[in-house]
C-alpha cells in the first residue's frame, strides 16, 4: 500500500507521460527518465521471460533510449514522418511501494494509433505497463518502463512511436 498522495502523484505521472508520448513531444518525454532508465517491450507475453536470453521488441538502456529519441528528432525517421496521430487511455492503476523508495505502478492501456505514413490505417495497441518511479530533485522520474502488449508475439506493424 502507498499513501493517497503517492498514488495520486503516480497516476498524474502516468497521464502526463502518456500525453507527451501521444503528442510526439519527444524531448520532454526523454526528460522523464532517470539516468539509469530501462525501457522494455518484450516480444512474448510470458511474465518469466529473460531479456538476456529472449529477443524483445525494445530493450533499451538509457543510451539507447537517447538514440531512439534522437532518431525521431532528426525528422528523417520516416516510419514516424509525419508522426502517428495517437491517444491512449490508461486505467486499472495499482501502485505499490518498490525498493529504495521507488513506486511501482501497474496500469492497463488502450492506444489508438492512426498510422499516416503510408496507407492510412487505425492500429489498436493494448497491454499492461509497469512503471518504476523514483523521486529525483522532488519530481517523479521513470527508472523502468515495461510494456507487455497482449499481442507481443504476433506480427506487429511498425512500432516506431513511443509506446
Amino acid at each position, binding site marked *: 500500500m502507498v499513501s493517497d498522495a503517492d498514488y495520486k502523484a503516480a497516476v498524474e505521472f502516468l497521464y502526463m507521460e502518456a500525453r507527451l508520448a501521444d503528442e510526439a513531444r519527444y524531448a520532454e518525454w526523454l526528460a522523464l527518465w532517470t539516468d539509469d532508465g530501462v525501457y522494455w517491450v518484450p*516480444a512474448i507475453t510470458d511474465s518469466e521471460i529473460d531479456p538476456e536470453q529472449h529477443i524483445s521488441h525494445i530493450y533499451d538502456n538509457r543510451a539507447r533510449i537517447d538514440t531512439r529519441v534522437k532518431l525521431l528528432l532528426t*525528422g528523417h525517421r*520516416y*516510419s514516424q514522418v509525419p508522426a502517428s496521430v495517437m491517444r491512449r487511455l490508461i486505467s486499472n492503476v495499482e501502485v505499490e511501494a518498490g525498493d529504495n523508495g521507488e513506486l511501482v505502478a501497474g496500469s492497463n492501456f488502450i492506444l489508438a494509433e492512426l498510422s499516416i505514413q*503510408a*496507407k492510412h490505417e487505425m492500429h489498436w495497441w493494448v497491454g499492461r505497463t509497469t512503471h518504476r518511479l523514483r523521486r529525483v530533485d522532488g519530481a517523479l522520474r521513470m527508472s523502468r518502463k515495461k510494456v507487455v502488449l497482449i499481442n507481443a508475439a504476433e*506480427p506487429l506493424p*511498425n*512500432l*516506431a512511436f513511443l509506446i
Partner: protein
Amino acid sequence: MTLDSMDSVMPSSLLDYKALVRDDRIHASLYTDPRIFEDEMERIFYRGWVFVGHDSEVPQPGDFITRSIGTQSVIMARDQDGHITVLVNRCAHRGTMVCTAPRGHARVFACPYHGWTYDLSGALLGVPYPGGYASFDKSTRSLTRVPRVESYRGFVFASFSETGASLSEHLGNATRLIDRSADLSPEGQIELSAGWVKHRCAANWKMLPENDSDGYHLGFVHLALFKTVRNAQYQRVVGDERAIKAVVRDWGNGHIEIDWSPGYEKPFEWLGSASGPTVDSYVALMEQRYGVETTRQRIMQGPAHALIFPNLFLGETNIAIVQPISVEECVHWHTPMFWKGAPQFNSRLLRMAEAGMGPASFLMPEDLVVAGRNQLGLHAKSVEWLELSRGLGREHVDADGRRVSHVTDETTSRGLWQHYRTVMSG
C-alpha cells in the same frame, strides 16, 4: 458474368512471365495481381525448396514448431527416432488445424474436434469409436508429410514436390553463404533459441528480399540512423560512390548477396567493432579450432548478408524469414543467430537484433513504411513498369561464375527476377 468476375477466374497459366519480367524492367502487376500471387504459391512455394526452420529449434525428440510454407501452415517436429519431419497442419478427418502453438513439446498431436491422434512423424495412432468404420486403413490417414525434407548445416528446407532438383542443386555454391555465417561458431554450429519477432508489412512479399539485398537505399531510407549513429560500419556504406568498396553478387538460382567486407578495415566491424576480454576469449577458441589465418579471415569478413531463394534471409547476425500472406501483405520474421560455443556474445547479438530488425528497431520500420508506399504507388494504372537497369553497364562475371557489381547496383534484384522468371515460366 461481369468482366471483373471473368477476369478473376481466368486461368493464370495464360500469364506470360517472360513478358512481365524483362532484363531491365519488371511489370507492376507482379506486385499487385492476386492471380500472380496464386501462381507464386504454386510454382515457387509448393514446387521448390523453401526454408522452414533450423534444427536447433527442435533439439529433443518431441519438440516441434509451427511455420508456413507459402500460405499453408506446417509443423516441423523431431520424432522419437530423432528425424525431422514437416507435416501439413491439417487433420486428415475434417481438416481441423491440429496444432496452434508456435512451439512446444508433445508425445502426440491430438485433433481437438474428434480426438484423432497422430505421432510426431504424422502417423495416425488412434480414432475414437473405431466401430463406426467398417474397414479402415490407418496408414492412408496420416497427417500429410511434406515429401522432401533436407537440411544444410541445420537449416531445414522442405519441398512439396516429390521430384525435381535436390536441395544441393537448388543451393548450388550458395552453401558458401550459409557456411560464412555458421563458421563463426567455434563449434561450427548456430543456435536459434532467442525466439522470433514478427513484423507485419503492408506490401507484396517480394519487396522484402529485394530490399534486404538492395545496397542503394541505405543513405536515404535510413538517413535518420546515419545522422544519429556514427560508426565505421554505417559510414562506409554512404558517401562518395567511387569510394564505396562493398559489392553485390548474384550467385544464381535466385540467391543474392550484399558483401560489405571489401569495405572493412578491421576485424569485427560487422559486430560494432567489438573488443575486450569477451572478444579475446572467442578469438582464442576460434584459433584453437580453425587456426590463426582462417580465424583472421572470418572475423574480418563477418557473417553473410544474403537471400537464399525464396524466403531465407541471412541478415548478418540475424536470421530472417519472409512469409507471404496475400498479394499485398507479408510478415518478416527475425531472430539473432547465436554461435554455439560462444554464449558470451548472446547479449550483444540480442541487442543488435533489436536495433536492426523488427517493428521497433532503428532500421526496418523505415524499410517497411517505404515498402508500404511502394505498394500504394504501384496501383497507378497509367504507369506499368518498374526500372531495374542500374549497374547493367558495369557488372561483370567473376571466376566463380557469380555476377558482381558496385553495392548500389541492381544486380541482386535482377538475379532474383531472372530466377523468378525461369521458375514461373516452368
